[in-house]
């Protein structure tokens, strides 16, 4: 397009003389444009560089069109995996470097078909559907880069998911032929079925130098902790069968064994358990006399009775997952999908994603030797815990087992967490199912601290122009012993605050901050001038609080530094029209909010209010000039899960409804108590009380 415009702009200079010339010119121009367009097209299909995108990248093509690569017999074989490899010895971090997003970049080699000198492929299956799904998922994810020079991790397109379909030596040679192989540094291989008959190694037998291995079925002796990643054995049944989530709860059977290849010794043990406990156990096996055409993988039998697999798994509380010749079993995935709690008996097995998943909350791991005690062990687990485990099992499947995509991206995330540990996902993020994430809280001020009294608190007074009342408030507050500083937020842009000499003389520093806009949110701004943890937000018309009451409020806040500590509503409700204090009729026995017309709270909440307030609440408050205190209550309750101390009446329904919709829940907690001094209104000499001057209103 650009090219054609360029030509046409030159055109007119040649045009003037003849009409025929004109026509010829037209034709030339057209051909030029056409050629230009063809060239553009070609340019696009042509590779930019040999490595980054082969010519067939954007076309829909067949796997069989991938270039053929012949492996010379003599091509080098990598060394066997080094068992002492760890991230700091076998992984090149410089490739990942510092990056503000804290995300590793993953490169996928283009597909090639490797054959040996006589043309026999290195793998009997070639690219499998599962591996293709995995690679597409990676290439669709944020981890992907097509720039090999920027990559931190390399994923070969050679499918090694199932060792049985591989020719080991040739596969190793093919790996070594990869252009960036470099002793396997930063290369990641995915393998789900390692080893082969008869002894079934627990890790991929293909020599692979220093490559990381994401393997299904590691034993503790082959797993390089902190280097390899243990992954599940994917069960294609998950895609075939849709098992809807079943509510946790008691099931028809207590223990179910559905595996078909259980060793004789274990089957005998299981049968003994069955004899002892009868109906609670269901031991299924292969069906021997199925009519033709029925998929034997989807049926199980017990004494001639036929059951559908995996549906039958949903009928049991616990499902046995015993090791076979291999440690990793695809059954685990089916069992989790069914929301059945797996009872894993595979000594030395490294559970899938055990680096981040807490399997104790979703499964029961029993040493193989203790198989005879299985029933007793499982019976000792409380019902509620079994339900939790059922929910957790299903959640693990949904998040980490469900598809090759889930498996692949989880693996990359785990490696990512190792490389950028300071940005790693937390235990809660990995392990809490969405319903718990939604309802639980992680209090940012979780440490039980009772801060020392000495730094005192900073009083923040928001004012507009009521100078007289403001000065009274300042004078009153200045009598509070623990006051450290007084901050006046002057919210009036049209009028300057009074001259310095006119302000009341008080013993603590007094600072006036002028704001740029008249916003209610200004009162919750985390001003640098606030140097204490405790903030007393107070309106410029609250003059009813005694010094004792304020000091006591501060003491209460020290014992509950993660809560809002406020005063009863009667102190706030100044009726401007009537010009007097309004004694509200809405006295209730319950507390879920305190108004911030006079309240102590932690400065951190200022920071949260200003920078982390969800949705458009902050703007809503500023626009409506109202409800900032309710917004603050929601914020604190939502993040700490705790009720404020002491209260007032919830009087503005409109805001409550609005905020509840933004937070998605009603985080406010209702309590019926308030804090009083220990000897409050007790029959005791007033002069011996710490806070005699409370509640004298």
């Amino acid at each position, binding site marked *: *397009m650009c090219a*054609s415009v360029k030509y*046409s702009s030159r055109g007119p200079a040649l*045009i003037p003389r003849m009409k025929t010339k004109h026509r010829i010119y037209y034709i030339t121009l057209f051909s030029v*444009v*056409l050629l230009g367009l063809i060239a553009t*097209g070609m340019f696009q299909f042509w590779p930019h560089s040999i490595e980054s*995108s082969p010519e067939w*990248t954007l076309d829909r*093509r067949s796997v069989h069109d991938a270039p053929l690569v012949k492996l010379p017999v003599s091509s080098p074989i990598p060394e066997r995996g080094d068992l002492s490899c760890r991230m700091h*010895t076998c992984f090149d971090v410089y490739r990942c470097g510092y990056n503000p997003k804290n995300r590793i970049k993953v490169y*996928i080699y283009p597909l090639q078909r490797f054959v040996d000198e006589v043309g026999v492929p290195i793998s009997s*299956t070639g*690219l499998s*559907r599962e591996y*293709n799904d995995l690679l597409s998922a*990676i*290439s669709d994810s944020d981890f*992907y880069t*097509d720039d090999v020079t920027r990559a931190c991790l390399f994923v070969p397109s050679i499918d090694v998911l199932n060792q049985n379909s591989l020719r080991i030596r040739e596969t190793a040679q093919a790996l070594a032929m990869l252009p960036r192989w470099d002793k396997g540094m930063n290369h990641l291989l995915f393998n789900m*079925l390692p080893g082969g*008959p008869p002894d*079934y190694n627990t890790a991929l037998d293909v020599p692979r130098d220093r490559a990381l291995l994401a393997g299904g079925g590691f034993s503790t002796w082959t797993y390089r902790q*902190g280097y390899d990643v243990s992954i599940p054995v994917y069960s294609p049944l998950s895609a075939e069968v849709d098992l809807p989530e079943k509510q946790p709860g008691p099931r028809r059977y207590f223990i179910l064994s559905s595996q078909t*290849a259980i*060793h*004789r010794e274990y089957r005998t043990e299981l049968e003994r358990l069955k004899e002892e406990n009868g109906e609670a156990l269901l031991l299924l096996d292969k069906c021997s006399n199925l009519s033709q055409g029925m998929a034997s*993988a989807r049926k199980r039998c017990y004494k001639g009775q036929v059951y559908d697999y995996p549906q039958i798994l949903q009928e049991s509380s616990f499902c046995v997952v015993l090791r*076979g*010749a*291999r440690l990793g*079993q695809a059954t685990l995935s089916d069992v989790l999908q069914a929301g059945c709690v797996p009872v894993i008996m595979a*000594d030395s097995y490294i559970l899938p994603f055990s680096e981040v998943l*807490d399997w104790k909350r979703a499964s029961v791991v029993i040493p193989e*030797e203790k198989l005879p005690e299985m029933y007793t062990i499982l019976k*000792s*687990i*409380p019902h*509620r815990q079994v339900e939790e485990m059922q929910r957790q099992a299903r959640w693990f499947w949904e998040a980490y087992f469900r598809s090759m995509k889930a498996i692949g991206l989880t693996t990359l995330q785990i490696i990512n967490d190792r490389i950028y540990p*300071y940005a790693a996902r937390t235990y809660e993020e990995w392990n809490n199912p969405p319903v718990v994430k939604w*309802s*639980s809280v992680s209090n940012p001020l*979780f*440490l*039980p601290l*009772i801060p020392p009294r000495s730094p005192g608190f900073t009083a923040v007074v928001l004012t507009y122009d009521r100078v007289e009342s403001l000065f009274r408030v300042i004078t009153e507050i200045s009598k509070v012993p623990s006051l450290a500083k007084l901050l006046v937020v002057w919210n009036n842009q049209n009028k300057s605050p009074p001259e310095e000499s006119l302000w009341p003389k008080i013993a603590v520093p007094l600072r006036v901050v002028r704001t740029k806009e008249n916003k209610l949110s200004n009162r919750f701004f*985390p001003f640098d001038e606030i140097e204490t943890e405790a903030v007393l937000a107070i309106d410029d018309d609250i003059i009813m609080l005694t010094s004792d009451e304020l000091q006591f409020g501060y*003491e*209460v806040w020290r*014992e509950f530094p993660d809560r809002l500590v406020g005063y009863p509503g009667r102190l706030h409700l100044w009726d401007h029209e009537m010009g007097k204090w309004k004694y509200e009729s809405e*006295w*209730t026995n319950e507390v879920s909010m305190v108004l911030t017309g006079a309240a102590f709270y932690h400065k*951190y909440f200022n920071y949260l209010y200003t920078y982390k307030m969800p949705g458009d609440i902050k703007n809503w408050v500023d626009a409506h000039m109202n409800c900032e205190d309710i917004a603050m209550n929601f914020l604190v309750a939502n993040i700490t899960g705790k009720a404020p101390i002491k209260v007032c009446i919830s009087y503005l329904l409109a805001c409550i409804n609005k905020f509840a919709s933004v937070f998605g829940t009603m985080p406010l907690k209702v309590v*019926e*108590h308030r*804090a*009083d001094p*220990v000897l*409050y*209104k007790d029959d005791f000499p007033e002069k011996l009380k710490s806070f005699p001057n409370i509640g004298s209103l």
Partner: protein
Amino acid sequence: MQARKKYVLLGLCTCCWLLLFYWGGLQERLLALLTRRRGEVVRPWPDWLDRALLPGYAENAELQNGGGPGESPRQRRQAWASIYKNSHCRMDTCFDFGRCRGRDGFRVYVYPPEKGDRVSESYRKILASVAESRYYTSDPREACLFVLGIDTLDRDQLSTQFVPNVDERIRGYPLWNDGRNHVIFNLYSGTWPNYTEDLGFNVGQAILAKASLNTEHFRPGFDVSIPLFSKDHPQKGGERGWLLRNTVPPRRKYLLMFKGKRYLTGIGSDTRNALHHIHNGKDIVSLTTCKHGKDWEKHKDARCDHDNQEYERFDYQELLHNSTFCLVPRGRRLGSFRFLESLQAACIPVLLSNGWELPFSDVIQWNQAVIEGDERLLLQVPSTVRAVGVDRVLALRQRTQMLWEAYFSSVDKIVLTTLEIIKDRVYAHISRNKFMWNALPGGLVVLPEYSTHLAHYPFYYLNLGISPGQEFTAVIHAVSPLVSQSQPIMKLLQVVSKSKYCSQIIILWNSEKPPPHRSKWPPMPVPLVVTDGRRKVSTSSRFLPHVTIETEAVLSLDEDTVLLTSEVNFAFHVWQSFPERIVGYPPRSHFWDPVKKIWGYTSKWTNEYSIVLTGAAFYHRYYHYLFSHYLPPSLRALVDRTSNCEDILMNFLVSSVTHLPPIKVAQRKQYKDMPGPQSTNMAPWATPEHFNQRQDCVNTFASWFGYMPLVHSQLRLDPVLFKDHVSVLRKKYKDLERA
């Protein structure tokens, strides 16, 4: 001319446009090209035409077969035991589970020290901690775990504390059995110049509890990595963390600090020799000195003199207090003292120690408390720590304190954590999950034998997004025989059973007379259980974890407590907000007597309190279990012997778990305990003797805990409208105000 020009242009554009249309997909590709030019690529792994035809990676039948049944499990286990020994040890192959059978299976035996053995201060503390723990046994036959009497802490041959001939001596132990079920504690291994992991004797199949463990030598799930601690590390209690308040913004004066030795040669010098590069003298202070070792001047380089001078200018303690992050690089060995020092100082450790298996890495999620750096990326450390946000600094800092107080502040805790980790492995199906280890109050006070279910504990409600149950069980401690229907206990039964939250009442009959017949008790809307505790009359039996208690909340009552139903209801409401604390009525207080240098106990009315009596208090039933199983028998024996102090002990226990004071709620005037300060009425609990006993208890308990766990509170929780000038009709708990 001008028109023609326009005409030509227009024509051309139309043609191009038409052509583009004709080419169909081209626009899309052009777009793709444009976006590609901007950096990111759309879908480079091809969407194969024959995707659906691709073969599965394995047949369903093959997958379900799981590789077939494999070899005989029995044979395999036998084979393993002979293959996987020594450096390949795992619990399955090198640990004899048979020794740990039975209800109290986990018992630890300490070999008695031999004559002439010199045992270092640190090892003496370790042994004392084991001996004082609830797992200790003096009978090697019932032991599951053995701890050597030989000091193996310092295996540096150049050290003065090195014990020679360990090999020969342990082989002389009849129970050694190639180290099976033995734990070997070690802080220093190897010596100049390589500092290898070698202990200088054959560890065999013993579990290593070792500091500075290298991931390569660490036998996962078998060894335990412990922190390096100094010989001054306290035996018990220990200092609290230095974090007193969560200032916002959480930045301190310095961003990052290091002060320590610079190694010019030898192992560890790569990192230590580069640390000075990040020093900027402003917010990053990284000070090194060459002055260490005998012949430092021999290796001295051009930087040394200047560095040494700069080094003297800053005080280490001051830097610890005033820095947000603290570099913890490896020394000669992987671990260093500064790890625990910065943890305590709430100075977030930035680790530069590649290959270090962090302390208790089995159970602690370190990435929530420290920044794990990479020695190779030292120069990136400043930008990394600068990028850590406010929220994260706040969280990391609090987490350092939590871990310090839960696992590291004393030798006792370090040793107990080691034992508990091993115990969790031995009884894997009744063990703590990662959450229990990493959430407050820490794994040591969570006893998995009580329950493995998180919701059964008082600490995790908020984390799980659930609230405590709506019912409570009243446990009444009865000591006097039932003679009349007007006894206080009758009134109490009625009052409590009237509460709509009460699900059952248990009477602990501790009187010498047998409990009266069922018909003597008044009819009640809730089940009544009478437990005959006469066979083992003891004061601490009131806190036995009775299986009959099914609710989370327990209301503990004395038989002569006078209460109103609404008082009970209100207190229960308050407890639901504070399920991890004791919520009760009559308060007491402790204080430090600077003259006698002992703790004092007072029942006087004061403006603060730190104890609420359990004669009328709500708390979580888990504390019953802790009381009976966590506290040592010696303290419970003291309580039984004196028939006193059980309530103080309970308050100690709960406060040591929560680090918070109990909660006192509003009460009416006529509680039995209300006589004024100058009362002459001497009830048995008010005799001076009784009172002195309680004072002694406070001091005994404090010495067992190693510190004073009680915390003062100045407030009382009252109903919202309590004694307010509003109509009585509006008040929910109006009865409380009737004097």
